[in-house]
């Protein structure tokens, strides 16, 4: 499974921080692969709406988190504006963003 995470928007645009970060779980050590797959499953990424939450009315500088999952021919994308209230999705985002930071 290939998982991509991107932080879109925010007070300023930073090319590297705002770039999409992709990980192919097949290339990861077993433990990390399992961790991501579990988080994706718990967050029901394949099943939830493409736009989980939209920014409030007339907002500005709000960040939107975009998660894309690919498995063979299957592709699904979820967009969630902050604050992400879905705890499972928040955990997945937290893990992926921290991981890409290292």
């Amino acid at each position: 499974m290939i998982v991509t995470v991107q932080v879109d928007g925010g007070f300023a645009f930073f090319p590297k921080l705002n770039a999409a970060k992709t990980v192919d779980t097949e290339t990861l050590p077993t433990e990390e692969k399992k961790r991501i797959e579990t988080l994706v499953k718990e967050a029901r990424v394949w099943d939830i709406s493409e736009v989980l939450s939209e920014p409030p009315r007339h907002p500005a500088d709000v960040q939107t988190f975009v998660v894309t999952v690919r498995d063979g021919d299957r592709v699904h994308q979820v967009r969630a504006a902050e604050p992400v209230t879905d705890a499972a999705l928040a955990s997945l985002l937290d893990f992926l963003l921290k991981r890409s930071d290292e």
Partner: protein
Amino acid sequence: MMLKKVHSLCGIIPPYMLESISKAELANTEGRAAARRTLALTTVLQTKRRMDGARISRVMAVKDGSIPHKNRRIYTCNNSESYPGTLVRSEESDPNGDTAIDECYEGFGATFDFYKKILGRNSLDNTGMDLIGSVHYGKSYNNAFWNGSQMIFGDGDGIYFSRFTQALEVIGHELAHGVTSYTAGLEYQGQSGALNESMSDVFGSMVKQHHLRQKATDADWLIGKGIFTNQVQGVAFRSMKAPGTAYNDPHLGKDPQPAHMKEFIHTTEDNGGVHKNCSIPNRAFYLLATALGGYSWEKAGRIWYAVLRQPELVKNADFVLFAKLTCEMALKMYGETVRDAALAAWKAVGVIN
């Protein structure tokens, strides 16, 4: 006399109508704000019917849009992602001792004072709206935003970013989003979105210059100065004076902002590049303000503000329309010399040929 005016308004427009005006889609206008305030006032009137005359007069005075109403409320999210959070400082209270809380309070004050003293504007909606800010949002949160009714500020991760309240122009920027939403309501997408962002940089920068009593030629014209930690190779998030030069860092990348229309960035990210292309109108403002000399708010700022309130500045305005309106306004307000300076600024950034 003020009391009489309000009574007659409440008598003419029934509350349900005020409510529907208040909720209407054309909503982000000062008219809607006034309707909403009036609706609130109607409720105040109904519930306070038995109050004595003196007290009623005071309530009227506070809610009447013409009377300056500075009312700041600062909350802490205690590093959660729920806001507004816990109220920690309100108007005229003593400093809290927490730096972010006090910076937010003081920054809101400096912003309110700028709009009131220089532009005659009574808070964001021009009818004395409370200024609400939440600090300590999230954990290691690298952002600040306007959610449509209040400001939210993060502490930064401490590695690359420190707290977002420490740059006065960032506070002024967020509050200016409120002003834009209550005036032109520029759509947050593409060129109108970049104009929306630019308005926030322009007014945020003027708030800082006014606070420091800085002339246009003495100002740094930087947005987000001091928020980067010393780990970052850069001075700020954006430079209005020299777009594209604010930072160049291995972790963040290079400042992508264009200084000219020929470098305009076409993208679907960031609502069509609103935080990238805002540098073009930003630079036009900088060029005009410095060409005119003196303080940026004396002429350039007043022209921008007058255009922001003009009905001709439609929600989906592009750079060319905005440039034309500012040139026309410059002529109307200050004559040909200033109009020519405005024209030269827009030509320099390639918006007008």
